[in-house]
């Protein structure tokens, strides 16, 4: 099955941070491979979840996609047009917006809510009056009464209210794609549920496409259509959410899911949870980056990087198991 034309196409995205310290004369400066060659498509109207442990490069990926940090390599195509070439960064940012994790740090403490929301449209040439009216109407849309909230400062709002303002701020651009970087992670569970429902409603109303980044597997399962699993700056598995959760193919995904608490005893897996911390991204292990923690690791895993292979509709995993002829003793097995 051929997937529909992607709204956003990420191709070979790379970001290596040079560490400022310890570069002693001739010695090469250490490099953190925060994002190391990620390729995926986002389909119009879907919600693509991105999960992984902290430090796996999720947030860096988000900031790369919105071009807040500049990529070292790779291309970002919006509706087939390369950002920075056929599409100017400014124009691109009208279509792709982001909601940040820290609802407090992401709102300017010196501006009232109305001005925070109206700022974006005004940058893109909307007259002030119109932008302010848009702000009032968006406040209503995100469930905040403009008469009460438009004139407030961020520190006078609760965490949930601030995150609603953040969402309104992003929506003010009339974007097609919204990147939600741990957008509900800092909220209380009850507030989190409200904001998730709001996001679902808004998505239908404004025909949005979501890129939902979170470390919370339950939330990702609830909201996403497809899910991508990241490990040490790489994509290890991507596929429809039900399929990935029901039949994870990468040992890392399985370990991750087994660590997820389940209310249903039948769904509890016998998979042992992950041991230890992820290796240092400064010197990632060669071959498959997961082999140092993988139960099934063999010699080939330490030398050859696995290539993502398809299994089922749009379900890819980068593991030597399940890749015929990879040299792994269980190559080609359905896991």
């Amino acid at each position, binding site marked *: 099955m051929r997937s529909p034309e992607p709204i956003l196409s990420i191709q070979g995205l790379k970001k290596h941070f040079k560490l400022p310290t310890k570069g002693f004369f001739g010695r090469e400066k250490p490099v953190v491979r925060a994002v190391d060659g990620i390729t995926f498509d986002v389909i119009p109207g879907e919600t693509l979840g991105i999960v992984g442990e902290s430090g796996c490069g999720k947030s860096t990926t988000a*900031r790369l996609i*919105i*071009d*807040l940090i500049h990529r070292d390599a790779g291309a970002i195509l919006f509706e087939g047009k390369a950002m920075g070439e056929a599409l100017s*960064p*400014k*124009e*691109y*940012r*009208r279509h792709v*917006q*982001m909601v*940040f*994790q*820290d609802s407090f*740090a*992401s*709102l*300017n*403490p*010196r*501006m*009232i809510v*109305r001005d925070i929301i109206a*700022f*974006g449209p005004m*940058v*893109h040439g909307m007259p002030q*009056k*119109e932008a*302010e*009216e*848009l702000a*009032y*109407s968006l406040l*209503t849309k995100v469930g905040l009464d*403009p*008469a*009460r*909230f*438009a*004139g*407030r*400062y961020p520190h*006078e709002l609760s965490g949930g209210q601030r995150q609603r303002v*953040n969402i309104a*701020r992003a929506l003010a*651009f009339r974007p097609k794609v919204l990147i939600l970087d741990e957008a509900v992670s800092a909220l209380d569970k009850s507030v989190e549920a409200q904001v998730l429902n709001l996001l679902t409603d808004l998505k239908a109303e404004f025909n949005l496409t979501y890129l939902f980044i979170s470390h919370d597997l339950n939330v990702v399962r609830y909201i996403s259509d497809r899910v991508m699993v990241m490990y040490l700056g790489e994509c290890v598995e991507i596929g429809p959410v039900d399929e990935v959760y029901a039949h994870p193919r990468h040992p890392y995904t399985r370990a991750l899911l087994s660590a997820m608490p389940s209310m249903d005893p039948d769904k509890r897996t016998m998979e042992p949870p992950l041991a230890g911390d992820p290796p240092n991204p400064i010197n990632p292990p060669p071959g498959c980056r997961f082999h140092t923690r993988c139960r099934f690791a063999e010699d080939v895993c330490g030398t050859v990087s696995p290539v993502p292979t398809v299994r089922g509709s749009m379900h890819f995993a980068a593991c030597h198991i399940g890749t015929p002829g990879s040299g792994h003793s269980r190559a080609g097995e359905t896991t």
Partner: protein
Amino acid sequence: MAATVLPVPFERSPGYWANVWRRFRREKLAVFAGCVLLAILLMAIFAPYIAPKDPTFGTMLRRLRPIGTPGFPLGSDELGRDMLSRLIYGARLSLFMGVVPVFIAFFIGSVIGIAAGYIGGAFNMVVMRIIDVFFAFPSVLLAIALSGAMGAGITNGLISLTVVFIPPIARIAESVTTGVRKLDYVEAARASGASAFTVVRTQVLGNVIGPIFVYATSLISVSMILASGLSFLGLGVRPPEPEWGLMLNTLRTAIYVQPWVAALPGLFIFITSIAFNLLSDGLRTALDVKD
């Protein structure tokens, strides 16, 4: 859709500066210092109406009279000029020479520091290394070196004091801006596609100007002392202009004849300087600036 919504009347919270003012009013000592400074400022502005005599006219017959002499409530100086009138007029140049350099340096230093902090990278490095060079001079030494080389005069004094205060203000501005630049709301504004100038103007400026301003006010006290010090050395203001530092200089030889008259101008410098310091401390608390 926007057309369906009429401008909504809304409750507006008291702004940031309103809160600052509310907190400032609670700082009793700073409010008092502010009143003292206001009095000195009024004295300077209305000097021609307040001063009983011409500050530049003196007669050798009545030189160095003690405090309390009829017609000379605060005595007379070495040329027989009325001390009270000279002290009142002296507030003009002394305040001017103390405050103006800090204000100019506040603008220039903020621009340099905010630019360096926001742009970062190699530009930041070059700018900050140049600033470091000026930091290698103790401020007194730099002020004296510059105005010593350029020669006496009000303009030269102003220039050298301004140059002295630009580096410290730029350094503070740089560090505050570097801290703010990484915050999410600045990132969000950048992600809106706004130009760097717009982001700095709307998002960064309002959040860094408070701390920089507090720091600059704390320098006024130093600037008052330095400016008068320059005149005291014979740099800066030239005779016969009344200026507290210069008066202190010309009265130095009189300390064995009329010691307390000779010490009076210094007392005024001291009072102004300490008032600026207390005011600055109060502002720091009111703006909630952490050191």
